[in-house]
């Protein structure tokens, strides 16, 4: 029986009403009295030496307040990187400066070298054309392997090369893995590309900076997934503004998918310029600008080798990856191909020996950082593709090969050879459920029906593991994180019993205002409508690390549970006083405090009132008021897992792939709001379909972006995706957080690309096609089928 409220209920989202009536308040909807408008002047060459920039004509143009260049930022820091990876030899990565505005050189198309601030956006754009920039074009470094070849042009002249780091994991396994692969019965090898993507939340980025000289206070409104992280990075490392003088507000945010985690130069610029000009400064990205300034995602080139015995048991796995960093290190960029990728290479399988090598490379392209899944899609894709290829080569059914190597549920907790310990899971159960909901048994008949229409039908599966609920601070600190990754919550009970929960998590589509309220209301036995969730404002919420890595309910939710537990503990003390009972005899359920074995009771609201009107109150024992804060730092990552199946039809004449069906059987542990969870899976899978079939960020050899708008970057549309069949009934609750939850935001984007590609390769099995790099566009599929690839 579905619940109608609290944990496990598909409560309708309260935030929807304002969004559906046009009353959301997104950053671009905020206009501050007296605001001016910033227009960034961006490089149109990928690599160039700035010989001179003459802004005099632009500064004299009508409506212009000032034109800024790097010289104006001489006294402030660069945009920092939040993670330092240590390479195979124990040395820290190479870390170039990332100035707010380009200094000396421009390093990618879109690299800003000047900003015009004017009374109107039109005036700023008009004046920008009067800037005379003498930028001498240099050879662009685009291809990753060429970038690290001897004698390659350097993106950063002060670094020794374009190699950011050469990372080995687990380095001690390197020789043993090589030996195991040499001696194995069979080795399946696959070379593949994980295509470069642009996150494309529908709301482009916006920043509005404001400065109050009389209080010396800065306010930044920004499209961020984590306002406190922006406050810390920008305040401490770029502009030198102490936190108590800097307020960062991320109001309604129109999607993030990772690309709104990072601290961007535009945010620092607007904050800085508002003080310099004593005027609010607003910047709104156009979509075209987003393509050349939002951090991109993925962009790995990998060779993977899987060694097996005669039975198909996995013996060893070796991968060799080039990961694109772009021209500068974005906030979390170094962690993505390493700790969010190498640690997941065991997948759902028992593979005794694993070695992962990653070479991170600077190129003259937009910085690359986390995009939905961040490292885990790259790991899952290569692993689930090589397993599928291995199954074909070994003549073993791909589902059966996976099952032979699954970690069994009896083996949890399971320590992998790549440094993580999975707490729970039941991979056979999710695979069973997957085969049921995808009707694999009926596939052959459907295939025959397609064949009768001249179409090639294929069925593909993938099984994924991910590590989310990011992250245990002490662990990530050892791995190079320069910040803790706890989360916070303050539960403020008001005098009449209603509640405001201030969370460091941030909702930009995930529905926290609803699901977080469900948790607190459930714990207190009160109506969900009595609980409000406050987020997105550093002045109103405790220091928190924000929303990414499927962490909000697992980490942020756990903080909220801990704070609510403190509330309940204190309220029980108050109740025991009111009922003149021993505290240990007080029970609390359904919003009522009772004394065991008596008819004494006191309602939630009465206790709350007593706490704030403490006339009859144990003031000698406890303080008045009812407000508690908790910071929660997880003991481990959480490990959602699941099986995904895709059924496609290929048009052999055009190469067009149609996704006919997509099924997902996920294990997210306990689920707070099934409706929201399913919506997250739908969205993630659609992005996975986008990656697998449509989306590709392409640079030419000169570093010009060929896919700089929706005219050339193919976004999934409604008719590109089918109705999804999703199931989350396989639940092995997380053992180390109080809600038993695992997180669901990224799973869809992690598990789906290999399932889709496996399905297409299955459809083409009669055509000798072993692999096609994503996206499997009609042209690529047709070319592969006709040997023109």
């Amino acid at each position, binding site marked *: 029986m579905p619940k109608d409220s609290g944990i496990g209920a598909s409560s309708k989202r309260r935030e929807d009403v304002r969004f559906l009536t046009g009353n959301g308040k997104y950053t671009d909807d905020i206009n501050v009295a007296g605001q001016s408008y910033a227009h960034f002047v961006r490089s149109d060459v990928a690599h160039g030496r700035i010989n001179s920039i003459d802004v005099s004509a632009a500064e004299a143009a009508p409506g212009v307040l000032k034109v800024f260049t790097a010289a104006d930022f001489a006294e402030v820091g660069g945009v920092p990187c939040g993670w330092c990876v240590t390479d195979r030899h124990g040395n820290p990565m190479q870390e170039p400066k990332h100035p707010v505005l380009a200094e000396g050189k421009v390093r990618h198309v879109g690299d800003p070298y000047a900003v015009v601030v004017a009374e109107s956006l039109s005036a700023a754009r008009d004046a920008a054309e009067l800037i005379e920039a003498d930028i001498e074009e240099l050879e662009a470094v685009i291809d990753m392997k060429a970038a690290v070849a001897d004698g390659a042009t350097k993106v950063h002249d002060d670094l020794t090369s374009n190699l950011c780091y050469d990372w080995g994991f687990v380095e001690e396994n390197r020789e043993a893995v090589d030996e195991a692969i040499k001696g194995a019965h069979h080795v399946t090898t696959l070379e593949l590309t994980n295509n470069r993507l642009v996150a494309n939340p529908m709301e482009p980025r916006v920043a509005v900076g404001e400065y109050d000289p009389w209080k010396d206070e800065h306010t930044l409104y920004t499209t961020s997934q984590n306002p406190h992280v922006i406050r810390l990075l920008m305040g401490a490392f770029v502009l030198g503004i102490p936190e108590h003088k800097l307020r960062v507000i991320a109001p309604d945010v129109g999607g993030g998918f990772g690309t709104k985690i990072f601290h961007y130069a535009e945010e620092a610029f607007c904050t800085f310029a508002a003080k310099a000009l004593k005027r609010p400064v607003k910047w709104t990205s156009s979509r075209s600008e987003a393509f050349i300034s939002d951090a991109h995602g993925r962009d790995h080139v990998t060779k993977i080798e899987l060694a097996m015995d005669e039975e198909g048991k996995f013996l060893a796995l070796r991968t060799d990856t080039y990961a694109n960093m772009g021209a500068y290190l974005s906030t979390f960029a170094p962690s993505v191909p390493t700790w969010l990728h190498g640690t997941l290479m065991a997948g759902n399988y028992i593979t005794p020996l694993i070695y992962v090598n990653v070479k991170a490379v600077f190129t003259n392209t937009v910085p690359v950082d986390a995009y939905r899944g961040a490292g885990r899609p790259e790991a899952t894709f290569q692993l689930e593709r090589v397993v599928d290829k291995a199954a074909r080569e070994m003549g073993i059914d791909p589902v059966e090969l996976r099952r032979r190597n699954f970690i069994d549920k009896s083996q949890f907790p399971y320590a992998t050879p790549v440094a993580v310990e999975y707490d729970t899971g039941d991979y056979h159960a999710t695979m069973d459920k997957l085969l049921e909901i995808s009707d694999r048994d009926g596939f052959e008949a459907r295939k025959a029906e397609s064949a009768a229409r001249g179409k090639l039908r294929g069925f593909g599966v993938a099984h994924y593991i991910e590590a989310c609920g990011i992250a245990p601070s002490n662990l990530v600190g050892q791995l190079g994180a320069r910040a803790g990754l706890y989360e916070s919550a303050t539960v403020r009970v008001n005098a009449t019993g209603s509640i405001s929960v201030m969370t460091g998590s941030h909702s930009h589509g995930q529905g926290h205002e609803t699901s977080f309220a469900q948790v607190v209301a459930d714990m207190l036995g009160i109506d969900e409508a009595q609980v409000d969730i406050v987020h997105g404002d550093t002045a109103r919420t405790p220091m928190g690390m924000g929303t990414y890595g499927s962490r909000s309910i697992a980490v942020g939710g756990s903080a909220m549970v801990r704070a609510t537990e403190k509330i309940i503990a204190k309220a029980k003390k108050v109740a025991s006083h009111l009922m003149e009972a021993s505290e240990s005899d007080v029970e609390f359920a359904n919003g009522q405090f009772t004394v065991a074995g008596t008819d004494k009771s006191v309602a939630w609201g009465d206790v709350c009132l007593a706490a704030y009107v403490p006339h009859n109150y144990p003031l000698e024992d406890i303080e008045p008021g009812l407000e508690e804060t908790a910071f929660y730092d997880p003991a481990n990552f959480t490990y959602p897992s699941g099986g995904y199946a895709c059924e496609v039809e290929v048009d052999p004449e055009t190469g067009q792939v149609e996704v006919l069906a997509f099924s997902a059987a996920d294990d997210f542990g306990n689920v707070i709001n099934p409706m929201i969870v399913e919506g997250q899976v739908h969205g993630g899978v659609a992005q996975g379909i986008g990656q697998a079939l449509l989306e590709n960020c392409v640079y030419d050899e000169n570093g010009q972006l060929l896919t700089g708008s929706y005219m050339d*970057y193919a976004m999934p549309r409604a008719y590109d995706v089918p109705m999804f069949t999703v199931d989350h009934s396989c639940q092995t609750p997380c053992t180390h957080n109080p809600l038993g939850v695992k997180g669901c935001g990224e799973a869809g984007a992690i598990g789906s690309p290999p399932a889709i590609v496996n399905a297409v390769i299955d459809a083409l099995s009669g055509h000798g096609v072993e692999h096609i790099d994503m996206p499997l566009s009609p042209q690529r599929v*047709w070319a592969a089928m006709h040997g023109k690839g």
Partner: protein
Amino acid sequence: MYAFDLVKPGTVAEAASALAGGEAQALGGGQTLIPTLKQRLADPGTLVSLSHIDEMKYVRESGGTVEIGGGTTHAMVAKAVADIYPGLADLAGRIGDPSVRNRGTIGGSLANNDPSACYPAGALGSGATIITDKREIAADDYFQGMFTTALDEGEIVTGVRFPIPEKAHYSKMPQPASRFPLVAVYVAKFADGVRVAVTGASEDGVFRWTEAEEALGANFSTDALGGLSASEDGMIADIHGTAAYRAHLIGVMTKRAVAEMS
């Protein structure tokens, strides 16, 4: 966008005089021009909006032809000619998306002659006549290469007259991102022959595939296309399709159009 004056004539004559100076540019539905202006790729000084000229919004059928006013939107065409000329109505109803079809006009599309636009294929494939404020131009003379037409500066497409074929069909393979045609083929069968017009494929814009026309003229069936293949020479090559792929699609789309009509 650069600043410009927007003028809104109510008649063709007023529009023609507003465009006469040479500085001004005509604005049809704006679905292509406005995005171009946003990128500051054009600086027209004056834009002459044609959306308020009622005499350019019409659909008239007479004696085996249908004439469509240059200011008629794709959505209006899709509805108005559904019974008269269903092949063309179907083409119009699949241009862009519903919102674009409510603004974009046939005159604007033909004046722009984007190499990946749909209407040029419909007009050339039908053997239409382009009617301007000055003259009438046969489609075979009108399309002169990518973004190039026989129009003089300031000349306005006020209407298009289509001979109505026995049947016609438009087969479109969309480019995955823009959803414009990667390659699309319009096949029209008349009592006296077949016309096959291809858009999206060639560096010279829309063109007639005469080999296919001849083959289909002799035997209107997919079999007749069996031995034909379009040449790769002059085909557009970009990230969405090589020249070889586009040439291949011309054959496939033609065959599919014929199959739909058979």
